[in-house]
């Protein structure tokens, strides 16, 4: 099947290549990336080299554009997938190919495509190489703008499942109207009104045959979502509500009750200040095109996690992953800049960021029917806490050559629930981070990070130090050590020492690293994968053209 499609592209290319004037107006872009790892066994950290010693994986993208016409292919190769990536990626193939025609408000894609409706609560198809995540659709997509301010989308197809397509069919439509843009068709003044409103609605339905001898399963499962985004001067309010009809699956333990989700973000912001308050309710919103699927397989929707996305190494030790079967969370976040030449701003200004979030279970009644599942009480938090954090960060430029930031993070982490590790501790952690930048001259710079994590649970205390020397625009030389000095078992008080060199030129980047990597969870947007400990040499090349 894929061969046939490749042939189609080949023919398109050959036929287009034969027209000289087509050539002149065409554009080719692309990118590739190669990641590799050479393993060493280090039983102390639980890192075991696979039999093949070296794993290499990579992809290449090519995009051909000619006016309104675009075609592209993506080739992926895993021989094998690096430890920690899903090992079902094994082999090399063209995994993504499409042709697209986009002109005058009509945009048609055949082949593979990515799409998102609203915030993704009922539909998001996307790709993230670092997560090893790709639920690309394979089918047809049409986007149509009949008039300014109105956009309609239709998507139909199956989802990518490694080298195949999943068994279920996904189809969806989405309509969005920007009231101001639409009315400005009739009266120009609407486009400059202070109150801006965008309304949207989407419907997604999946089909999978019912072969179950035990139960009557819904072969067609429908979900819908309604959203409204309102901007008024410096205030904004974003909201989306989603509802999903009966959808028994592995993910929810084959219960028939419907699911729903509510996502609200309100905020105020103007120059120098930003404030947001958000809330999210999720109840039974696991939505996949194969009801038997688990892990990150064949998800139709995306349920963003609310807590702050951490980037500092020790702060990523306890990341939050969305609980699609039920969670109730809230977050408040403040960005404030003391302007330069004020009392607290000093000469260069001072930046402070504050955020806090909390995630609870949802309140449920005891199940009246085992098959239906427990009824939940909308917008009522349950007793169990999943996660909580408080972040405080201050950034300050001290002199023309010297700037720094300090950060304190308090985290509560329900390891039991988030990692599914039973008998695990409920972790309370305090993290302190100090970062300095020192400018030696216009191109030579030093950056240091000092991080400390204090906890009485799990693996106890950690400390980390990092130093990076950069020479603009090409070189980054980094060394860091993560040390689990507080571990109860003296054998596990291990230094995870790493060295890394990066050479960047233009849109290319080559990096080589050597050292030990601790086990952990890598999460993007609330979707996580487990990264086991490893030791050895890593290298990566990425390039765009």
């Amino acid at each position: 099947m894929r061969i046939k499609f490749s042939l189609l592209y080949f023919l398109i290319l050959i036929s287009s290549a034969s027209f000289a004037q087509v050539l002149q107006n065409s554009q080719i872009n692309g990118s590739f990336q190669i990641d590799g790892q050479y393993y060493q066994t280090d039983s102390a950290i639980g890192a075991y080299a696979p039999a093949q010693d070296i794993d290499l994986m990579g992809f290449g993208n090519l995009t051909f554009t000619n006016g309104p016409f675009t075609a592209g292919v993506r080739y992926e190769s895993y021989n094998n997938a690096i430890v920690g990536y899903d090992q079902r990626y094994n082999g090399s193939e063209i995994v993504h190919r499409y042709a697209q025609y986009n002109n005058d408000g009509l945009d048609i894609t055949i082949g593979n495509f990515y799409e998102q409706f609203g915030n993704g609560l009922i539909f998001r198809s996307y790709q993230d190489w670092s997560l090893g995540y790709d639920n690309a659709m394979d089918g047809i997509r049409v986007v149509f703008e009949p008039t300014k301010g109105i956009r309609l989308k239709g998507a139909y197809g199956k989802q990518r499942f490694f080298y195949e397509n999943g068994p279920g069919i996904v189809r969806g439509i989405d309509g969005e109207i920007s009231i101001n843009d639409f009315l400005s068709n009739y009266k120009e003044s609407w486009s400059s009104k202070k109150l801006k409103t965008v309304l949207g609605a989407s419907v997604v339905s999946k089909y999978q045959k019912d072969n179950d001898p035990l139960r009557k399963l819904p072969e067609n499962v429908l979900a819908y979502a309604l959203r409204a985004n309102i901007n008024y001067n410096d205030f904004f309010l974003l909201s989306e509500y989603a509802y999903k009809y009966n959808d028994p699956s592995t993910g929810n333990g084959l219960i028939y009750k419907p699911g729903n989700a509510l996502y609200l973000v309100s905020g105020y912001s103007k120059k120098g200040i930003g404030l947001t308050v958000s809330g999210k309710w999720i109840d039974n919103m696991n939505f996949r095109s194969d009801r038997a699927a688990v892990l990150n397989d064949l998800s139709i929707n995306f349920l963003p996690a609310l807590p702050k996305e951490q980037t500092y190494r020790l702060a990523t030790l306890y990341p939050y992953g969305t609980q699609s079967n039920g969670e109730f969370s809230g977050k408040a976040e403040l960005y404030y800049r003391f302007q330069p030449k004020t009392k607290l701003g000093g000469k260069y200004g001072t930046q402070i960021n504050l955020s806090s979030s909390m995630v609870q279970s949802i309140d449920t009644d005891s199940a009246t029917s085992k098959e239906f599942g427990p009824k939940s009480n909308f917008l009522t938090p349950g007793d169990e806490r999943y996660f909580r954090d408080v972040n405080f960060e201050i950034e300050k430029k001290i002199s023309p050559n010297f700037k720094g930031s300090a950060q304190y993070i308090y985290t509560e982490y329900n390891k039991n629930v988030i990692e599914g590790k039973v008998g695990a501790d409920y972790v309370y952690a305090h993290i302190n981070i100090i970062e300095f930048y020192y400018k030696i001259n216009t191109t030579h710079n030093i950056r240091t990070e000092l991080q400390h994590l204090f906890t009485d649970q799990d693996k106890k205390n950690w400390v980390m130090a990092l130093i990076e020397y950069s020479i603009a625009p090409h070189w980054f030389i980094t060394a860091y050590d993560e040390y689990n000095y507080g571990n109860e078992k003296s054998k596990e008080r291990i230094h995870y020492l790493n060295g890394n060199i990066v050479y960047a030129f233009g849109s290319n980047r080559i990096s080589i690293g050597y050292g030990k990597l601790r086990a952990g969870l890598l999460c993007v947007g609330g979707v996580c994968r487990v990264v086991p400990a490893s030791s050895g040499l890593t290298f990566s090349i990425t390039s765009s053209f």
Partner: protein
Amino acid sequence: MKKLIIFVLFLSFSFISFAQESESFQMPSITLKDMDGNTINTSELKNDGKPLIISFWATWCKPCVNELSTIAENYSDWQDETGVKLIAISIDNSRTSNNVKPFVNGKSWDYEVLLDVNGDFKRAMNVNTVPHTFLFDGNMKLLNQHTSYAPGDEIKLYEKVKSAAVSSK
């Protein structure tokens, strides 16, 4: 057979790309929203004959934020001297995209910011990692691309902006 097709594909691609030289860049046509919810098509991105910087970033990307904060300190001078415009494309997904406006305002940045929530523009521009910066001259010819950020990169970038401003005239 499949390998052969791939080979021929690459060959024909390189052949076509050989035929195109010094053309103005065909910006992909992707519909994005700005921070106020207005719809913008990326094919319309331009800066009226003056240099244009398109910078891909994310709120969770520390080097990106450093780069944009550093440029922000001198952005008004850059604009006065060369007329350059920087458009910051946030690749934050729906977890963090709703926070972009408060974040940008909180930092007092003056950039035009667009939200590429599902990475459509990022993919179309073949951006693998952020930060990734594109520099176009006044005729929308792609002059330079750069990934990653080391302090001092902004000086090199501004040198290129200045020469682009001169050549665009």
